[in-house]
């Protein structure tokens, strides 16, 4: 017979998880109520994050399409009905996505009518400056300002073009007086940049507002979960007291509640993240067209946001459990046993 007093060891985490899981399963009704609190909070968070991601994608795609449309309408305004006329496109250095999309539209409109300089792209044959000028009635210059030539004379030599359109702001060409008139495509100028800055500022404000709303909703979630867990502690005074009488350490009781709420938080936030994202995608699909929404959404970001939401939900649930777990672990066994709840 062992006669001295030993020291109780901590139960392995595996056992604690096992007990926590069976606790959740048996009190499934109450657990589901707690889970639904997390689901709501995280669904709201995820729906906002998804909205942000989809809106960015959709609006940048719409914006690009709008710009390409504008470029195309400029071309047709200058050239009139394109009967037998040739549009020459000269690209320098870095070609932006919008310009690339523009080129694709040009090619799609009728490959024979267009020629491009220095752009390797399907349907476009890179040609020399001399060859480009041959018979073209309009020159469209794209690409970045740094790579553009100082003089436009080489490009327009032999061209019938009177007008040169240019997407790059502030690009000045030497020897313009005798040559063709150089115009800037309207949406690439300084005003456009300013407009974009204003829109970005508005978006920042909007983001701040949404962040605040999300923060409040998450706090509400934490309080809800804490309340549910506190009730569950009260409900289980006797059970906790019994466990202590049987040799449970206070730290085990604490761990039990933390694991339980972590599991509840994880389940709730996975569910919340999925429903929140799905709901928002469908709503945006109805507003903008499903093809646009599903085609342009950045799924990497979406996944990252989902992962973040799950981590956030789990941590929140655990934070909510701190106080209830402390109440539970500090009970004197004899008092806990007397509880009649």
């Amino acid at each position, binding site marked *: 017979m062992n006669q*001295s*007093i030993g020291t*109780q060891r901590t139960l392995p985490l595996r056992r604690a998880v096992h007990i926590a899981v*069976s606790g959740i399963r048996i009190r499934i009704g109450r657990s589901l109520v707690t889970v639904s609190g997390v689901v709501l909070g995280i669904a709201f968070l995820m729906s906002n994050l998804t909205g942000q991601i989809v809106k960015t994608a959709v609006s940048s795609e719409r914006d690009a399409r709008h710009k390409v449309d504008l470029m195309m309408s400029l071309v047709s305004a200058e050239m009139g009905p394109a009967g037998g006329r040739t549009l020459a496109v000269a690209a320098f250095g870095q070609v932006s996505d919008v310009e690339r999309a523009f080129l694709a539209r040009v090619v799609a409109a009728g490959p024979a009518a267009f020629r491009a300089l220095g752009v390797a792209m399907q349907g476009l044959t890179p040609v020399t400056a001399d060859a480009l000028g041959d018979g073209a009635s309009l020159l469209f210059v794209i690409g970045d300002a740094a790579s553009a030539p100082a003089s436009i004379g080489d490009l327009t030599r032999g061209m019938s073009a009177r007008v040169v359109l240019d997407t790059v702001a502030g690009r000045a060409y030497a020897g313009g007086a005798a040559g063709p008139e150089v115009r800037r495509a309207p949406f690439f100028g300084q005003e456009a940049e300013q407009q974009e800055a204003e829109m970005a500022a508005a978006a920042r404000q909007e983001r701040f507002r949404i962040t605040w709303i999300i923060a409040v909703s998450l706090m509400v979630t934490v309080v809800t979960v804490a309340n549910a867990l506190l009730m569950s502690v009260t409900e289980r005074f006797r059970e906790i007291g*019994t466990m202590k*009488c049987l*040799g*449970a*350490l206070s730290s085990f009781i604490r761990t039990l509640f933390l694991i339980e709420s972590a599991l509840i938080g994880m389940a709730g936030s996975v569910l919340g993240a999925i429903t929140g994202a799905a709901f928002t995608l469908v709503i945006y699909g109805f507003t903008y067209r499903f093809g646009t929404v599903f085609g342009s959404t950045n799924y990497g970001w979406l996944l990252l946001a989902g992962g973040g939401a799950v981590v956030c939900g789990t941590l929140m649930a655990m934070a909510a459990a701190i106080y209830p777990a402390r109440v539970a672990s500090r009970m004197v066994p*004899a008092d806990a046993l007397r509880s009649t709840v």
Partner: protein
Amino acid sequence: MTASHSQTEALFRGETEAGKLDHVIRAVDVHKVFRMGDSETRALAGVSLDVRRGEYLSIMGPSGSGKSTFFNMVGGLDKPTSGKVYIDQVDIAQLDPYELAWLRCRKVGYIFQTFNLIQVMSCIENVTLPMAFAGMDSEEARDKGLDILQRVGLGDRALHKPAEMSGGQQQRVAIARALANSPDILLADEPTGNLDLKTGEEIINLFSRLRDELGVTVITATHDLKMLKTSDRIVWIEDGLITRVSTPEEMQIEIGEVGGH
């Protein structure tokens, strides 16, 4: 922790009054006062009791006399307002939480008046829970748990929940759980209160056997006269005080007298 360890070691090296080593439990002038707002309840008013190793002790007393309270003090479930409780010569007030948990887990087996089975767990889970706390692996615990349940006649009820069982069956599960870690001391608060004559007798025999074969110290609170017969001593508590200590032989006479009236 270190203090109590060195104290324990000192005691076991024999640096103590000889003879007292044999007392597995010593309660010295234990008082317990419950304060609830303005009102005070004096549940124990100076109880001193030495319990020998392997003794079978019955505590009798009217309802509210302080039996359960005394059990809680002795089992390390509550702290006395004043006075000391020694288990194996160690003042349990000096134990740190880890040692106290160890004591509750392995040294003492409790059978509560209200069973206190964990309602959400099956019989076998209830019985193996203290084994898990003692660090036993689940396979071994399962085998041992089934074995103990068999012994209390519930081998076929292992997977039932407490709510699906009768009072007597629940009590037997509670007894099985108390025996889970082969405790040195068994504290049983009215262990046969809900049992029929036959089962009650079986439980009493089980307790006697545990005492005889394993040297388990058994302390019960009871009104059951059958229980008194097997006891070594009977302690009477009234209003939080021990009023007398007697042997079953003396009791027999009294019962006889009472019966004769």
